């Protein structure tokens, strides 16, 4: 176990993180005593079978789920002790998600989805529209600017989700089974894209996956089993 002082300076880290769902008889330990750290530029795979706690850990790292005990750190600040609004600000300040099912905003076009994310972390003097177009250009979806999510294929939707995440200019990108809903060819192309963009932008990447092949493409793999780190915890 690493003391808090040792982990608090990282891009993100967890310290003895425990998350439980339900209460008493229905209590489920989604995560138990998980400690890990993420450094700038890391590429980490959270690997494990369904129900092992991968998604919960990703959500905890971004402040979407609060810990039952333990702490989630972000740039040395205790993210988990902030209120909902402050956690939202923290996410807008550099944590981006790519969900398994894309989770695009259904009533916004591709362009508006990306612009909405860009608007959450806007840099001075920067045009939101221009940034949104750039990001969609990076994922090759300029022809689909005005398409609604319902009009996109699964792969296209996931690429918009990636563009949306990039529009937030993240230093930490959390991907939850980003290829889970896609056929293998499309999945490979989407994974290639994410890894290429990590190289280009230098953000740290955490990918939750049950696919060993996907995990193998990351620099480091943390195996989760029943909410506990089975291997590859702190340090490389």
């Amino acid at each position, binding site marked *: 176990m690493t003391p808090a002082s040792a982990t608090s300076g990282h891009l993100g880290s967890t310290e003895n993180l425990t998350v439980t769902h339900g209460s008493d008889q229905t209590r489920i330990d989604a995560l138990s005593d998980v400690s890990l750290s993420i450094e700038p530029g890391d590429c980490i795979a959270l690997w494990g079978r369904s129900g092992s706690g991968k998604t919960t850990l990703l*959500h905890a790292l971004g402040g979407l789920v609060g810990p039952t005990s333990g702490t989630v750190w972000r740039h040395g600040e205790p993210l988990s002790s902030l209120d*909902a609004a402050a956690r939202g600000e923290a996410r807008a300040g550099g944590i981006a*998600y790519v969900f398994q099912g894309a*989770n695009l905003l259904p009533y916004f076009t591709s362009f508006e989805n990306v*612009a*909405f994310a860009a*608007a959450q*972390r806007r840099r001075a003097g920067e045009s939101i529209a221009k940034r949104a177009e750039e990001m969609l250009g990076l994922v090759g979806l300029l022809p689909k600017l005005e398409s609604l999510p319902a009009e996109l294929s699964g792969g296209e939707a996931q690429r918009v989700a990636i563009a949306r995440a990039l529009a937030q200019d993240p230093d930490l990108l959390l991907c939850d089974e980003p290829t889970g809903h896609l056929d293998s060819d499309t999945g490979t192309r989407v994974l290639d894209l994410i890894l290429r963009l990590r190289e280009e932008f230098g953000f740290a990447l955490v990918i939750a996956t049950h696919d060993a092949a996907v995990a193998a493409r990351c620099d480091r793999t943390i195996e989760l089993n029943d909410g506990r780190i089975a291997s590859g915890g702190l340090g490389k």
Partner: protein
Amino acid sequence: MNATTRLALAGLSRSPGRTLTRILVLAVATALLGAMILFIGNSLQTMASGAVRSVPLDWQGPALSYSEAQRISGAVARQPGISQSSATATAPLAGAISTGAAGVTRSGGGSVLAVPPRYLSQIKTFRLLQGTLRPGQVVLDQQMAATLQARIGGTVRLQPARGARPVSYKVSGVAIVTAPDTLFQPLNPVVGPAPAQPPANIAILSLRTFAKTYAPSLRNITPANVGSNVQPGAQTGVQWQVQVQLYPGPLSSGSPTAAFKLADQTRNRVERSLPGQIQFVDNLSDGLNTAAADSLFAIALYIMLALPGALIALGLAYLAALGTVERDRRDLALLRAHGATRRDLLSMAGIESTVIGLLAGLFGAGLAFVAVSAVVTGGVGLTVTRIAVTAAACVALAIGGAAAARIGASLSVLRASVADSRRTGRREGKPLWQRLYLDWIALSISGLIYWLTASTGFSAVVNPDSNPTLSLSVYMFFAPALLWIGATLLLVRLRARGIAWLADRASGTSFDSGKRFLLASVARRGPAINRGLVVVGLLLAFGVNLGIFSATYNQQSSIDAQLTLGADIAVAAPPGVVGSKHLASRIAAVPGVRSTTALDHSYAYIGPDLQDTYGIDTSNFAGATTLRDSYFLGDSAASAIAKLSSTPDGILVGRETITDYSLNTGDLLRLRVLDRSTGRFHVVPFHVVGVVQEFPSAPKDSFMVTNLNYLQTVSHGTGPNVVFAKTAGTPSTIGQAVAAATRVDGTVVKNIDQQGRVTASSITTVNLSGISRIEQLFAILLAAGAMGLFVSLGVAERKHEFATMAALGAPLRQVASFLWSEVALVLIAGLALAAGLGFLLSEMLVAMLQHAFDPPPDALAIPWMFLGALAGAAILGGLFSTALAMRQLRRLPLGSILREQ
């Protein structure tokens, strides 16, 4: 329990909040229908019992002789359904002489009524003020007693006919005859009831005494000479008759139409059982026929007012079910993906709907019972049948409403692919009705029908035939129905166009303020917003229409009732009492009475026509009642009264009379006026000073108004016989005080509140206040509930979307703005629709029912307080539920929501 049932029940129990919301909304919707059924049922029963009670004497059958009347009376009394059957008689009275302390006093002609012992047990044609009816003695009507200055124990001599020997009787009592027009009418069963001019003097004898001492001087009336007693003093012989009263209970248990049928069947049965021996003049059926016609009018009114409310409430229930359709779709799509067949899905939807409908229907019926009992004074008189019918209707409606939405959702799943039905946020296309311009077409046809119907006269007419029906032009109903449809569709079109226009304008602007995101969202959530907009807008429009129409109806009801009664309080007094007992000033002294006026109501002949004649005191008449300019032709009310005042022998006559007799203002008019001193009509000159078409307490046609002093002088009358009083408080309460203060003088006091319930005109007979109170209560509750439902369903539908926004780092304020913007849009557009459509519908409805408004309203009455409450309920409902929704958004479990796919 099979797997489908278990799955359906599990689905309901898994989302208790969603299930409870659907049950509650459906319950409120069905409660509105249940309340309608209860109220209409109760209202019809009240109308029937009121009509039965208002008939003092049900049947009168002429008989040829005393013995025959007695025999037939006995036979009729043994028939089922007959409460009382009595042999009676009426006869003319040429004159009467009283000898007492004041000397010899004479009275003019009149009539004699002969009744058997215990006559008054069920039949209420007169009531005894003093003494009692004894064999060999006479009871005098109070007017006759006053004229003769006769007292109990004194002796009067009654002369049956000119030249006949007077018969002496000891006076044993004084009575007030309450139904003289019915008692002394000519009995011709073929013609039916024909209420006659009441006689000035009435003496009441026991039947046996009458037969022995009075009748022998007169011949009997036979079918051949029955019509001879149509005018006062014209009856020349003895009219033997059988008077019958039915048991009121069975007649009062249903609608007036049912009572009418029952009374008719009973009369036919009795007449058939005595073939060729008796035929009745049926006063009861005559009264019930009018009530039956009124009840049809009431039903038409209730339906026109209440049906849109029930339909909109059902739409709200549909919204509640549809609000979760996206989630249902996803659930069903998942089930389908796991192998559920179409039949399984439909069965599951059916089971769910039945469970929800059953619970909602029973709860709604209970809610209806509570609401109606609370709002309707005296309760609704629940019977097992009424409870069963109401509960069954509520359950059926609730199951139907729940099934329509649920199965609709299931069908959409079955039609679409699994993947498709899991997607939301499709691009809104232009629906077929917009491409066909059905909104404009509906509005144009509505306007055209309204214009055509208005230009040819509206024809909602009650046919008072043997089987009452309401003649309503079918076209009339198309106008408001198409207005409802057209306005709603137009609103939807304008909403889409308005937002599209705003979105277009916003597309060139930056994303800085977030407005562009809001407009993009609103522009693409058309179907969801339209659902809320249509239900909220129509609900508010229904409330506005209901409020304005009810207020106008009540206003005109009050005016009509006052026109019929004459004033807030009208006091009828025996001859001479008003003057001698200073009744007008004593009534004015009763607390709550603002002003009084005394007038003389009598009759005069113009040519062969007998017309009501009112002698008024022009100095104080206008202050004690309400005179409208529309009552007079060519003059204002003030001007007409001033002209009358300045012309001592002036007279205001009706328009028909002016036309029929080619009269002009200033013409000399000779009338035959009853001379009270001789009991005969004599010619008196008047001068026409104006034309009157309505007047307080006057009949609809053929009446005249003149100066009280002149009328008293030429008729040698005993002074006014009626006092009008204007009140400064509740007329019914003050009326009771007036009655208490003047009871010793034999007065009959009526107030405008009771008049509204008994007057024969349709508008005042049909009491809308109960149903409109119920509907207004529901409208206010539903308006608040509809906004709450719209917001909560919006949150439920967009929970995943809002969670995604929060995951992207959007602040709560921005996320909530997507809710606020839709709530504001629905409120603004809904209130605009309500104001426009509600007002137009009220105008249309009042115009369509213009025949019922007499006089027609000058303008619609606007119930500002109710309208404010309605708008306030919608706004507060929206604000409150949005505030709750924000609280909910703040606590959204982002992690678990974002896991849902």
